[in-house]
């Protein structure tokens, strides 16, 4: 989904630098680089997510030490996982995007890189049914353990009653 051109909000200087720096450090042909409003956006194949996150976290020039947010968007034909990253030392930010097959949504957990991912991943598992491999305890978080279904998905009915 491509956003429209924003006139007044552009990539800041640090993020511009990051965009130039990223391809040489990651050195992965399958990764797509782009921008969206004021953020650098990377489209990553789901099998590469763990090694790339590890590089982003450990590389001294990138040093993404803070996982700000992990969210899932259901586009019906694909499930898109968004990792919003920020670096306190380098002051740059980016978004990692990863597309999953909604019939078999499996991806590696990044909770051993950023501990912050633990609950975000459990929540995504709870509401969207995404399975995070190697997660320490992938149980339901917000919903009761005996709940059936994944209410975050677009296929889950929002209002069961009819308007009267």
């Amino acid at each position: 989904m491509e956003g429209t051109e924003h006139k007044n909000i552009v990539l800041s200087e640090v993020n511009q630098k990051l965009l130039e720096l990223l391809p040489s450090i990651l050195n992965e042909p399958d990764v797509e680089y782009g921008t969206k409003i004021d953020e650098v956006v990377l489209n990553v194949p789901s099998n590469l997510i763990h090694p790339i996150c590890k590089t982003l976290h450990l590389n001294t020039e990138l040093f993404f030490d803070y996982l700000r947010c992990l969210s899932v968007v259901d586009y019906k034909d694909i499930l898109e996982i968004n990792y919003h990253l920020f670096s306190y030392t380098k002051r740059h930010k980016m978004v990692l995007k990863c597309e999953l097959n909604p019939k078999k949504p499996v991806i590696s957990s990044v909770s051993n890189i950023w501990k912050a991912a633990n609950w975000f991943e459990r929540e995504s598992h709870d509401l969207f049914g995404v399975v995070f491999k190697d997660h320490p305890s992938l149980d339901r978080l917000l919903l009761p353990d005996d709940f059936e279904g994944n209410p975050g998905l677009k296929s889950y009915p929002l209002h069961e009653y009819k308007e009267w």
Partner: protein
Amino acid sequence: MEINKNVNESGSMVDMLINMGPQHPSTHGVFRLVLQLDGELIVDAEPHIGYLHRGSEKLCEAESYSQVVTLFDRLDYVANLNGELAFCMAAEKLLELEIPDRAWYIRTILCELNRIASHMLFYGVYGLDAGAMTPVLYGFRERERIQSLFEQVTGARMMHNYIRIGGVKEDLPSGFENKLYSVIDELDAAIEECDELLTQNEAFLARTKNVSRLPIEDAVNFGVTGPILRSTGLIEDVRISEPYGIYDRFDFGIPIGNTGDCWDRYYVRMQEMRESLSIIKQAMKQIEPGEIQAKMRRIVRPPEGECFVRTESPRGDLGVFLVSDGSQNPYRVKVRAPSFANLQAIKHMLEGVYVADAVVILGSLDIVLGEVDR
């Protein structure tokens, strides 16, 4: 409290499981913490959340953009205006709206007042958590002044629905300036009074000093933000590092701690109230008459696209991830709630401390369960 005793094969007691909550006054809402004890030491802690899950994010997908604002009121119900602001900023970013100056000044003044009200509530209940009965009376008295001011401006005490996409609902009422100045004077004196009452109290110091020190690396790795992160010594405030609105026009400091213990978390918030007061005073000097709503269509319909906005709520880094498909309803709204990420660290913080400190440590995080469970 429900107590189970785990017994090994020979019949002697190994360790004890204690259910703290969900109906426990010191959990500040409905939150359950299962503590595994070895004598008086906590061996393991397992937090259970979700008792207040209302599916707000999913509900947003069925409401129009202007209706969603009311749902954001109910997330962080101690700092409602800060929540409203975050969503409105996200929608405005997609719409590329220019917000009039006066609207931004009104928003900033009210949000900073809300920050003080939220920290005053924290001050009161944290005193209770640590065993002091008096501070809550003072904290609530000051919070009440701000709440009644809100009531005059927005018409409601909690669920304001005042900040709207494109500006604010209506202009400040007549006589607001004088009332605000008298509240500022009262708050100035009250913060000093509260400070004297609790900060250097010997019993309070004994309960909070050097309790649950959080190293800076752990705090960052857990995604902890807001006053708790600043108490570890990291200078980080979204209002300064990524200024939004008109925050670049004010001169204010970021209070930080140095050890990251419970007392630092408390004291950072106390100092933050003074900084917020200073912002309000500066804003009152700069505010000028003018428009309070941007010119826009009545029906909000942002173009296709997505954006992420970050704001500094009293509890930390409040982010909203908004995806629009060009229709009248948001396609997806994800709230990056600061309390949610802060609460994750509780398991790590509680391991190896005395059970008597559990309440003080949980209190120092200042969680709001409405925001954790969404």
